[in-house]
């Protein structure tokens, strides 16, 4: 690999000191000098390529700490997109259109339909409509919550679902109220039946590779060169490891091996069985460092576990608090297993009761087992106040943030409808996190968020406002952080949170030459322009992997 001399730019190193330099020297994919042009030139021999930045901005490749790359790649390559606003007839129209583009016998799948259509979909007549629209191709569509599916007759046949099939534990195969026949409307764990059939008939090793490669190429376009996959199955980990061994992977992937049964279909082993084979997935750029635990759901569906009750509602009545998926002793045992396997936990905690449970359990593990280097993560750390933040710092817990959705928008409005103002007053205390010395990391949650675009998240951490200007106002503006800190949440701090701080996260000597060339410097441009930042090129290990 030829050495590189990057000169004549405004280079944000994204180190703790907040340094800027004018040049980088890169040898064998690593940074060997960062400073003046003269020092950079002195660090490498004559045989090098020069990149003249012509004053453009450079920063480290971005790190997305919550990126379901395989699901995003699937959505981009194969899924049928149905907007949640689609009416019943429009929904069938999308299926008809997909059928025209899908070879006979191949699956049509995607999302997301409006759950408000549930009664209409749960009937023999609707099933007949769906069968007609798909012209015999198996169909399985998700609703907007990801918790329910609508499948047609071919999909049910492939999944082995008949009118006589009993409901699985914590799931329902809905039946037509008049005829008692299965309608294809599947709730909660019953989704797994159709998902498994679709998965087995659609995704093999080569398709999985195509999906992962496509996903990473999308990420590279946004300047992302490292992700933490937040819910990793064996096939996903195998796929990225195989790509990397062949030199085809252009991003670091830290996996979060699924730790427990979850209400969704996971191909392959989970928990201890999966942890036991983690080293099979370890390559230069694939690091099996985490296990994933889902401790609760989301506030909108009343599945986030809250310390104070939700607003009283018709559905849940008064004093409803949601609940966690496990108890303190259960979680403590699971965490002990995870640490024993040499992993840290990434714990999905949408509600403050889930966060408290996670912190309590880690405290218990430390009490019983003594100190450890494990750096556990709270994913979507959103409703946390002073004492809990202090405990997180003491226990070496990191906070993974979701700034791509944490600003005035339609989701935020939905959360405001279900949670009390006093609870919302604790929302997204990012400035408090930094002041307390907590390690923070930005994540997109792609494809739950429709785009992995990190520039949106960097801007909203600075402005706390809607980058599109559609929703007015700012959400707790006192919790805004500087642009440099927001950039570091996606670089230096993110690397610490996902365990890659020795490799990446800043343009310091010794680290990988992962960097992006930008059309503007997000650290110095107007705050409400940050989201418009364009990536001109993305470099991974000193190699150009994307150019605009």
């Amino acid at each position, binding site marked *: 690999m030829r050495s590189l001399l990057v000169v004549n730019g405004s280079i944000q190193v994204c180190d703790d000191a907040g340094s800027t330099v004018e040049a980088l020297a890169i040898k064998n994919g690593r940074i060997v000098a960062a400073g003046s042009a003269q020092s950079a030139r002195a660090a490498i021999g004559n045989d090098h390529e020069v990149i003249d930045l012509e004053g453009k901005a450079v920063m480290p490749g971005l790190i997305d700490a919550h990126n379901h790359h395989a699901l995003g790649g699937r959505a981009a390559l194969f899924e049928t997109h149905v907007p949640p606003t689609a009416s019943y007839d429009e929904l069938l129209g999308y299926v008809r259109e997909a059928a025209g583009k899908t070879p006979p016998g191949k699956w049509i799948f995607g999302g997301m339909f409006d759950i408000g259509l549930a009664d209409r979909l749960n009937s023999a007549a609707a099933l007949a409509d769906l069968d007609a629209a798909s012209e015999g191709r198996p169909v399985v569509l998700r609703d907007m919550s990801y918790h329910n599916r609508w499948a047609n007759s071919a999909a049910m046949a492939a999944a082995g679902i008949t009118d006589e099939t009993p409901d699985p534990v914590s799931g329902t195969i809905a039946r037509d109220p008049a005829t008692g026949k299965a309608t294809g409307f599947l709730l909660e764990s019953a989704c797994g039946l159709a998902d498994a059939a679709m998965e087995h008939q659609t995704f093999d090793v080569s398709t999985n590779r195509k999906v992962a490669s496509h996903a990473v190429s999308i990420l590279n376009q946004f300047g992302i060169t490292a992700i933490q996959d937040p819910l990793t199955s064996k096939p996903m980990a195998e796929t990225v490891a195989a790509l990397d061994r062949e030199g085809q992977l252009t991003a670091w992937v830290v996996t979060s091996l699924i730790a427990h049964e979850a209400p969704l279909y996971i191909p392959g082993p989970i928990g201890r069985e999966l942890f036991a084979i983690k080293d099979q997935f370890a390559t230069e750029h694939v690091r099996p460092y985490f296990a994933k635990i889902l401790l609760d759901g989301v506030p909108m569906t009343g599945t986030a576990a809250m310390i104070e009750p939700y607003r009283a509602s018709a559905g849940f009545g008064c004093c409803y608090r949601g609940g966690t998926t496990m108890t*303190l002793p259960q979680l403590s045992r699971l965490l002990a297993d995870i640490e024993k396997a040499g992993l840290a936990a990434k714990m999905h905690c949408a509600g403050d009761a889930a966060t408290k449970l996670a912190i309590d359990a880690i405290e218990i593990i430390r009490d019983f087992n003594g100190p450890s280097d494990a750096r556990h993560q709270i994913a979507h750390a959103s409703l946390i106040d002073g004492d809990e933040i202090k405990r997180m710092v003491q226990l070496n817990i990191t906070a993974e943030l979701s700034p791509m959705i944490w600003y005035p928008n339609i989701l935020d409005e939905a959360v405001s409808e279900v949670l009390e103002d006093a609870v919302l007053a604790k929302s997204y205390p990012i400035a408090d996190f930094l002041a307390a010395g907590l390690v923070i990391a930005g994540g997109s949650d792609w494809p739950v968020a429709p785009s992995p675009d990190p520039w949106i998240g960097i801007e909203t951490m600075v402005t706390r406002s809607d980058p599109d200007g559609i929703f007015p106002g700012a959400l707790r503006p006192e919790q805004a952080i500087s642009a440099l800190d927001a950039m570091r949440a996606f670089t230096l701090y993110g690397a610490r949170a996902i365990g890659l701080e020795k490799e990446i996260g800043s343009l310091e000597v010794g680290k990988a030459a992962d960097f992006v060339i930008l059309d503007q410097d997000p650290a110095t441009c107007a705050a409400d322009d940050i989201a418009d930042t364009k990536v001109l090129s993305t470099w991974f290990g000193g190699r150009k992997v994307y150019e605009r």
Partner: protein
Amino acid sequence: MTDDRCPVILLTGFLGSGKTTLLNRLLRDPALSDSLVIVNEFGDIPLDHLLITHVDENIRLLDTGCVCCTVRGDLIDTLVDLRDRRVRGEIRYSRVFIETSGLVDPAPIFHSFAVDPTLTADWELCAVVTTVDAVNGVATLARHEQAQRQVGLADLVIITKGDIATTEQSGAIETRVDQLNHYAKRILVEQDGLAALLTSPDLRQSFAVPSVAEHGHHHGHGHDHSHPSTICSRSLFLDAPVPQAVVLEWIDLLAALRGENLLRLKALIQTVETPDRPMLVQVVQHVVHPVQQLDAWPDEERRSRIVIIGDDLDLDMIENSFRRHLERAGAVSSVESR
């Protein structure tokens, strides 16, 4: 609650420590004549049963292997068969001794009695009795970790061969056993009262309730460097009643997270819910036995106590975890340790 489960006494002790001699002696005692013995001998040629006299019809021999592993199924089958024959009126017995091979870790047998549904309804493991030889015991304990664990697990330690030991040897073995398991009752095999102890109607409680000042002195957290050992113990006392769920949760966590290093835990807990009826908890390694609620306090000292015997367990850390667990739950009680 009336409990008509048949008491089981598990007899352990290292090879040559006098288990068989003890059994012979016990079974000659008229007070124990209604006892049944299950003998396990590891190896091809079962010898020990030949040494047991007078009670042939009441001896069952398990000789397919070590009772803690391969033979556990046989042990269970034997017990089920004995129960059936008693129900049919074919045999009578009031208690069962299980003599284990000298090499055995008794903990797995303990677990079977705690959790195996084919046993829990009819049998209750009331006591682990460990024999220690006054002449060779100190040397055996120094050489064999298994021997230390057997003492660590014991409710009652019986010192054998005291009649042929020197005064010095007798003193040394007393000291050593006390270091390993300060909380077990200790008795010399020749001493009167052994049969009475094992036939007491309070057999169940008398061993399960943690005794905290059995020998009038204790060794605290000190180490005796002449006998390095990983076996360690501590007792904790609480000065106020505590919520049942909080203590059970901590015990549950201790068993789950540190079970490998926990030989035994016995706890008598004064709960906020029923302060006059203490809760009795036993743990062997990772298995928490079904919690019993006593009808009354068994002795004068009406305060919660927890006795922990560990093997390579950091007791300061464990004690601290208990304090913090109470704090986290907002339970008000101070913890005193010995």
